[in-house]
């Protein structure tokens, strides 16, 4: 069976613990990078990561883009929505179509 994880600062991710997701309160780039590779190797199919945390480890996240699992999804943190998640969508469209046709 696969599991789902949430990574981010304590205030943003605590709520997810109640849903039964594995919550990891990390805010340092090196630790998050290590954590993501550990989770990817340990049957975590979905990793939700807050936008500020994702901005720290963008390379690591891009590395998992083309692999089937895990699916890394950006979610807004408690400070508010930075639009980082929507940007990933625009990047995918640009890659496939050749230009960003969403707007």
């Amino acid at each position, binding site marked *: 069976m696969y*599991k789902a994880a949430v990574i981010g600062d304590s*205030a*943003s991710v*605590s*709520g997810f*613990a*109640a849903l039964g997701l594995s919550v990891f309160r990390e805010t340092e780039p090196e630790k998050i990078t290590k954590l993501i590779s550990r989770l990817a190797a340990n049957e975590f199919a979905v990793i939700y990561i807050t936008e500020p945390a994702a901005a720290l480890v963008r390379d690591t996240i891009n590395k998992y883009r083309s692999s089937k699992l895990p699916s890394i*999804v950006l979610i807004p943190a408690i400070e508010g929505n930075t639009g980082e998640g*929507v940007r990933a969508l625009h990047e*995918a469209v640009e890659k496939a179509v050749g230009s960003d046709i969403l707007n």
Partner: protein
Amino acid sequence: MARLNVNPTRMELSKLKKKLSSARRGHKLLKDKRDELMRQFMILIKENRQLRTEVEAAISEANRYMAVAGSVMQREVLETALMLPKQEVELEVSEKNVMSVYIPEFKPKYRSGDTNDIYSYGMAFTSIDLDGAVSALSSVFPKMIRLAEVEKACQLMADEIEKTRRRVNALEHIMIPDYEETIKFITMKLSENERSTTTSLMKVKDMVLKQSHNFH
């Protein structure tokens, strides 16, 4: 366009003709694949966008509740309340094949049958805002799972579309013109050889006739 480096023989000519026809067929097939992938991709992108807006709105709402809860309760009490979850979720992962792109599908499995059984704390010492945050997250969770699915599918399909587009372009602009040019070259060379043989035969015939009959 560069002509391929081959000997101008009939053997090569027939080989090249076969290659050209399979390149044309491959080109047509890949073009169809690209078009269908693109159509599916656009549908997914639409869904992805819709889901993302909904999920982001719900999480922002939960975060607002959480911020209020954090301000009326002590940090430690809040953390303790959420420390031992009642619910546990696991994912069943299966695969779906869309135009030879394998995209994952997730199906959540809950430990306790009652999906509303999510409050891991007593109501006495916690703020009502915490309940709001937890319930907002719980109601959007199925959508979050679907979002993870769709987002992955979009990324994988974008990769595949890019690859297919490169292949189509390589066939259309490099391989097929190269084959055509080489075939033309060999055909010309062969007919040139033929003409040259015919003229030398005529010449020899003339010489033989001249010798045997003293024919002018």
